[in-house]
């Protein structure tokens, strides 16, 4: 049995094989899905639950293809938040009155729902504001390990230790590690990508000095599903801890953090039909309790004197101060909504959206689609030489089509691919074929409008 966590590698590990051989499975192997995509009737019924989808933008029906940035919310999520404030609003984990007890119960039920949704135990789910905060929480907890006392020393990083990320990370899964490396003297290294944007796994990158391996399950720019199993195996073989940025996978794929065998994972509620201001950090229980806290204050302590404090176990250990109660409850409603459809079918729909996007964009002359060959979720980024992404976005917006433009918080990936910015279309369960076709027509027309047609 593998040890609960991996402190500094044992001398035996150090003197063993310097590098671990990586087995890279076929990219589709991890993600075989036999579920049927959503039918047109099902999508139309789903759309009825999202009031914003029947609004107009610039006098045109909204075509929302920016779900990768933030997803729209169904009525059940909006209602859950309102109902909480109308009937049960009170502070959780303090106070003995009836409302406080009901609010606490509902808050903890929400944690259980979200935990079940990703295959975790409730006490392994820490509420955060979003994935960015989850990663920062970890990075600061790791640097606090250097100063929080001898019981945390195993998790402290030292000069010569290595943090491994990838070249395709969102800034949120890069900068906190850059900063942690700076604070501790550790070295930040990265798994590079090829000209298409796909990871180039090299076993030499996983060394006995590798302490943390942080990478995204699905790239927010490419939509490509990364080979989690291979990276986790390589990381664990050298005694490193794995942090998975699951922001773009949890909303679109069945995710089981235990099956993936990651040590930590983060995701954001607002990308998975939930409200803003709520996200979660998953961590294996023993690990969460072995880390020192990041934020300190009320609700996370056992005994406090004027000189010192003792901390509760996870998750309260990391939840100082008044929590995001209505948001957590509404996120549980979002999870219920997705579960009722079934994540296999959500994933099959995403796959169909992706195919239609990639095939359609590839068929337009002069369009470069990024990472087109990988197994992916329902999003695609592309470049049209001669049309800046902001101009493309503006042109599409005039037709009511909302897409993301710019570097999508991934400047290093864009630089590696020789680009400054791209346009990204990203779908969700409410995305129809007709919307994708309308978007594709817009991209083709933009070439005429901006005079880049051959």
């Amino acid at each position, binding site marked *: 049995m593998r040890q609960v966590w991996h402190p500094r590698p044992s001398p035996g590990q150090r003197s063993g094989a310097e590098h671990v051989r990586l087995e890279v499975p076929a990219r589709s192997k991890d993600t075989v899905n036999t579920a049927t995509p959503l039918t047109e009737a099902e999508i139309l019924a789903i759309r009825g639950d999202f009031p914003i989808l029947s609004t107009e933008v610039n006098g045109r029906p909204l075509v929302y293809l920016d779900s990768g940035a933030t997803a729209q919310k169904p009525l059940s999520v909006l209602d859950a938040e309102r109902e909480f404030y109308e009937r049960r609003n009170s502070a959780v984990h303090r106070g003995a009155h009836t409302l406080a007890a009901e609010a606490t119960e509902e808050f903890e039920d929400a944690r259980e729902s979200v935990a079940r949704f990703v295959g975790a135990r409730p006490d392994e789910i820490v509420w955060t504001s979003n994935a960015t905060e989850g990663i920062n929480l970890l990075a600061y907890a790791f640097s606090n390990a250097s100063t929080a006392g001898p019981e945390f020393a195993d998790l402290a990083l030292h000069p010569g230790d290595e943090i491994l990320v990838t070249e395709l990370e969102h800034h949120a899964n890069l900068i906190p590690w850059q900063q942690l490396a700076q604070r501790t003297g550790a070295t930040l290294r990265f798994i590079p990508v090829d000209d298409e944007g796909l990871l180039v796994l090299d076993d030499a990158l996983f060394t006995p000095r590798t302490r943390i391996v942080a990478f995204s399950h699905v790239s927010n720019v490419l939509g490509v599903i990364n080979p989690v199993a291979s990276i986790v195996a390589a990381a664990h073989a050298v005694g490193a801890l794995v942090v998975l940025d699951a922001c773009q996978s949890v909303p679109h794929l069945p995710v089981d953090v235990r099956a993936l065998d990651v040590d930590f994972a983060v995701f954001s509620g607002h990308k998975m039909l939930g409200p803003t201001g709520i996200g979660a950090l998953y961590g294996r229980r023993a690990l969460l309790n072995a880390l020192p806290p990041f934020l300190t204050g009320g609700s996370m302590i056992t005994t406090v004197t004027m000189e010192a404090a003792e901390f509760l176990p996870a998750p309260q250990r990391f939840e100082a101060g008044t929590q995001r109660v209505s948001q957590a409850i509404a996120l549980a409603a979002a999870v219920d909504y997705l579960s009722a459809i079934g994540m296999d079918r959500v994933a099959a729909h995403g796959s169909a959206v992706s195919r239609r996007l990639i095939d359609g964009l590839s068929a337009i002359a002069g369009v470069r689609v990024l990472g087109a060959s990988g197994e992916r979720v329902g999003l695609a980024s592309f470049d049209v030489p001669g049309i800046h992404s902001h101009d493309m976005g*503006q042109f599409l917006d005039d037709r009511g089509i909302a897409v993301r*433009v710019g570097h999508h918080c991934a400047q290093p990936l*864009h630089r590696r691919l020789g680009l*400054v910015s791209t346009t990204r279309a990203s779908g969700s369960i409410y995305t129809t074929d007709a919307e994708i076709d309308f978007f594709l027509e817009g991209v083709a027309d933009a070439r005429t409008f901006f005079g880049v047609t051959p």
Partner: protein
Amino acid sequence: MSDLDGLYQQLILDHSKTPHGRHPIEDVTASSHQVNPTCGDEVTVSLRVRGDAIEALGWEGHGCAISQASASLLSTLVTGQTVAEATSLLAEFREAMRSRGTIELDEDRFGDAIALNGVSRYVARVKCAMLSWVALERTLED
């Protein structure tokens, strides 16, 4: 003219494709590099000021049609002007761009640059038009 045609007037598209002043200049007296963090667009504006006159303005950078055309129109407009005149044009330009379409640029003072009038109704694009003007402002502050 549709809103989109008002934003992307032919003159804007022409300037973005064949920009004026997009080259290095000699004997630079001041320069400023500006970045639009949302899209990564950047521009460096360089000036050669003699006495009170802007003898030359050159710029380099990359960005959307609006930012490229704006830098191009700026170089045409400001070259040969006094520093005081450029400063007052800058203030008027900023006021018009931030007016959400309620203030138009004066054709007698701005010439071809009035093609940028359409930008002010697109709040998200005002930064694109302003990028090179902010760079000019920084160089004049030096």
